[in-house]
């Protein structure tokens, strides 16, 4: 498997774990952008009910995903639109999207 394939697989896996952790019924959208430059992973979440209680619940679930991939990537989180998304257009990044 090439490094690019590994990055794609890693990005896909983080995305799928994140969706499972939060629960698809709670999600409007979720995206993951992983950069090969520094192995950072930006997880952006749009919740169907975007309130404090749901954000807290989602974060607690995502912390489990962060722990799972802690040795692979440096993970950060955001809610709503995210200016980091264009980074996925660079050749050294991969993106997973759920909608």
């Amino acid at each position, binding site marked *: 498997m090439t490094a690019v394939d590994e990055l794609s697989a890693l990005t896909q896996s983080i995305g799928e774990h994140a969706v499972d952790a939060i629960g698809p019924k709670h999600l409007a959208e979720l995206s993951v952008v992983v950069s090969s430059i520094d*192995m950072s992973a930006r997880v952006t979440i749009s919740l169907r009910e975007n309130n*404090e209680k749901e954000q807290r619940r989602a974060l607690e679930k995502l912390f489990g995903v962060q722990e799972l991939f802690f040795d692979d990537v440096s993970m950060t989180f955001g809610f709503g639109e995210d200016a980091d998304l264009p980074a996925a257009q660079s050749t050294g990044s991969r993106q997973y999207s759920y909608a």
Partner: protein
Amino acid sequence: MSSVPVARDVQTHLTRSVAHMETGDRLRQLGDEWFAVCYFYSAYHMVKAAMRVDPIFDDIARCAAVHPALSVDSRYAEHHSGGLGQNGRSLGVNEIVFKLYEKIRVPYTRLHSASVAVRYAGGLGDISPVTVKDDFDAVRTAYLAGDIVAP
């Protein structure tokens, strides 16, 4: 690496934390969303002040038991996030909070997200200013109670 001198001691971190909080208070009263950025950096300096005196960073074995990348020098972490480079895994302040300070990891992470939303994205948007204040108060209360310390 920036050549701008950074805070290196507890008192300087606390002085900057209070300054950012007071600016945040003024901006919040004006309805300016940049208060969220000020509150996050006030919280950041509180966490940095707590890290400077957390006994875990005096004990190599305790650090290593948490994660191989956590070391006595981690108390000097300045970047928000770490990463994987030629020297292996590094930990940023966000990740140290995640690993060591469970009591504040939700509000601290939300504050960071709010700060990013204001600086780089479309603004606070759906993020309520009330919850930003709540998150800041949660971190501040934990600091003042001496609760930002590794278990």
